[in-house]
């Protein structure tokens, strides 16, 4: 019955909702939503583009309505105590989600996640992400990947959202962060603060640079703040990379191990020099992208001009060196160099046993 009426209307796109609202009383709650839609529609007919409307096309309408019907009837578990109120609330949520641009399939999935929030909670949560400028598809992906986000109190999410906006991570910049580091919503405020603080106050990045770093290298949120600082110091002092370039080359994306391996290798080969106080080197250092951003094979062939065999051994030796450095630092030992050793070509290790 319902369907026939819809099909009959497929030539009259803008009026579909309105008609339905009138013709199908149990969708009465839709009126409010419909009213707001009407307003949008009238603006559209006055010259605004249809693109602003969440409605897509006749076929979509049919699908949406059918799906909606299915949703309503397939999710009895979602019902709370009130049998009458719940379906309506659910429908409202579904409709809102459809308005936002989520596909039926996605909505279905999101609502089915167990354990999950109530539909209203889900809507409130998702709304926060949408308001932060993340599109429906990425929101869906993020939530599917990290369902723990769904169970966050909305208050916390709102609070975190406003903080992220302050950091400059609104307007769609959040998408990448949300995808690779959903913890940005679940972690403690204190921990996020620490990371931001290290970047701003210890590493002396500007506010814009901090935003850019969080946006492009969200993994920094997962790192220990003092290790993050050390990584920066390694790049800045040891490798002579300026702040601008640390940001531009996404330096923080790479593990310290990888950075050290490739940098120290080049240095010992004589192919990389730490710039002096004036920022000068005797040789032209390879570009950072040719050091970190390429595969190992390319790095060896193009930048290091060395063999894979040698690099394998080097990495092992470097790991041993780091181990020894750590253990000697923790024991607070100082190694004394025997002066005579400078002239010896044989290592007389057994002397120690005498």
């Amino acid at each position, binding site marked *: 019955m319902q369907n026939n009426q819809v099909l009959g209307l497929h030539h009259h796109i803008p009026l579909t909702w309105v008609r339905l609202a009138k013709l199908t009383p149990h969708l009465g709650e839709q009126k409010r939503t419909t009213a707001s839609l009407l307003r949008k529609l009238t603006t559209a007919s006055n010259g605004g583009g249809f693109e602003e409307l969440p409605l897509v096309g006749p076929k979509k309408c049919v699908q949406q309505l059918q799906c909606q019907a299915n949703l309503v009837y397939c999710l009895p578990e979602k019902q709370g105590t009130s049998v009458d109120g719940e379906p309506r609330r659910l429908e409202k949520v579904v409709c809102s989600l459809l308005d936002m641009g989520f596909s039926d399939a996605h909505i279905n999935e999101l609502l089915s996640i167990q354990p999950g929030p109530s539909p209203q909670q889900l809507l409130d949560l998702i709304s926060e992400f949408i308001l932060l400028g993340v599109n429906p598809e990425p929101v869906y992906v993020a939530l599917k990947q990290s369902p723990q986000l769904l169970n966050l109190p909305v208050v916390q999410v709102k609070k975190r959202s406003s903080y992220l906006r302050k950091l400059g991570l609104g307007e769609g910049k959040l998408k990448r962060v949300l995808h690779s580091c959903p913890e940005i919503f679940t972690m403690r405020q204190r921990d996020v603060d620490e990371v931001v603080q290290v970047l701003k106050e210890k590493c002396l990045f500007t506010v814009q640079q901090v935003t850019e770093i969080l946006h492009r290298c969200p993994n920094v949120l997962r790192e220990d703040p003092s290790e993050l600082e050390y990584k920066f110091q390694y790049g800045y002092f040891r490798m002579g990379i300026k702040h601008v370039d640390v940001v531009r080359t996404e330096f923080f994306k790479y593990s310290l191990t990888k950075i050290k391996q490739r940098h120290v290798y080049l240095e010992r080969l004589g192919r990389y020099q730490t710039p002096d106080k004036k920022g000068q080197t005797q040789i032209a250092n390879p570009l950072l992208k040719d050091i970190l951003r390429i595969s190992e094979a390319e790095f060896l062939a193009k930048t290091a001009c060395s063999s894979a065999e040698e690099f394998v051994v080097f990495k092992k030796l470097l790991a041993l060196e780091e181990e020894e450095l750590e253990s000697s630092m923790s024991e607070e030992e100082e190694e004394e160099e025997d002066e005579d050793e400078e*002239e010896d070509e044989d290592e*007389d290790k057994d002397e120690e046993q005498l």
Partner: protein
Amino acid sequence: MTYSVQFGDLWPSIRVSLLSEQKYGALVNNFAASDHVSAKLEQLNAKDFVNEAISHWDPEAESDHSVAPSTACSPNLRCFTFARGDVSRFPPARLGSLGVLDYYLMDAASLLPVLALGLHPGDTVLDLCAAPGGKTLALLQTLCCRNLAANDLSTSRTGRLRKVLQSYVPQGIRERNQIRVTSWDGRKWGELEGDTYDRVLVDVPCTTDRHSLHEEENNIFQRSRKKERQMLPMLQLQLLAAGLLATKPGGHVVYSTCSLSHLQNEYVVQGTIELLANQYSIKVQVEDLSHFRKLFMDTFCFFQSCQVGELVLPNLIANFGPMYFCKMRRLT
């Protein structure tokens, strides 16, 4: 260092090796009760590179049939190393039942000059710059020394040399071998003991490139030591000359350094030969070691372009050396 000119494209590989942990060999102490030592070292996955080289020598492949490896190399030397690319380390040597240590850890490349010297049983041997004693010990391990004279200018260094001998050679054998340790000026040996020895090793003081690259302080390459550095080849030449003068006519000398510099290596050899010819009318001939080099190619990386002598190049896969050595025969 300006080795990039001398070595070209090879230099980065050498440089990274010099700056990374070197590889060691375990020289088996023949004076300890040592059968189990070889087994122990083999269990660690190390192999005796000397034995490997000699056993893999293919007589058919060699054009020069006159020299068999058994005569070309000093005998009785066993030295274990880990395979190419294996960065394992040897555990420290242990005291055996005879009260001496079971093996001596050294740069395996240091054994090559001793192998090349080609000792025969009953030889009288001189080690002109013996301290700290690795090569001296190796000479004794050949079991060929009728007597061995070990000298080093520095008394503190000869002190170390004595300790090494005490740790590795039981007293009885030390006495039997008539080992004499002295702290005299090696340059005087021509006058002190001219025409005396069958085999002479002149392992000269040099810029010890591997250590110099690590050391910031008191580095031989720093400007304040420039004079000393420039004087070095002169000193080395004088020592080699003394060593040759101390050799019997018909006897053999091996000159060795742990430097990459041809100013300390080939130039010294060529300069000394010229000096001996001009000033002493003594004829010295360089012996070709390319055959010897081929024996050990699997374990060491050799430089292919030495004018005279052989040079082991450090490489990450086989981080031995640098070790330059050149064998000479005193003809007159």
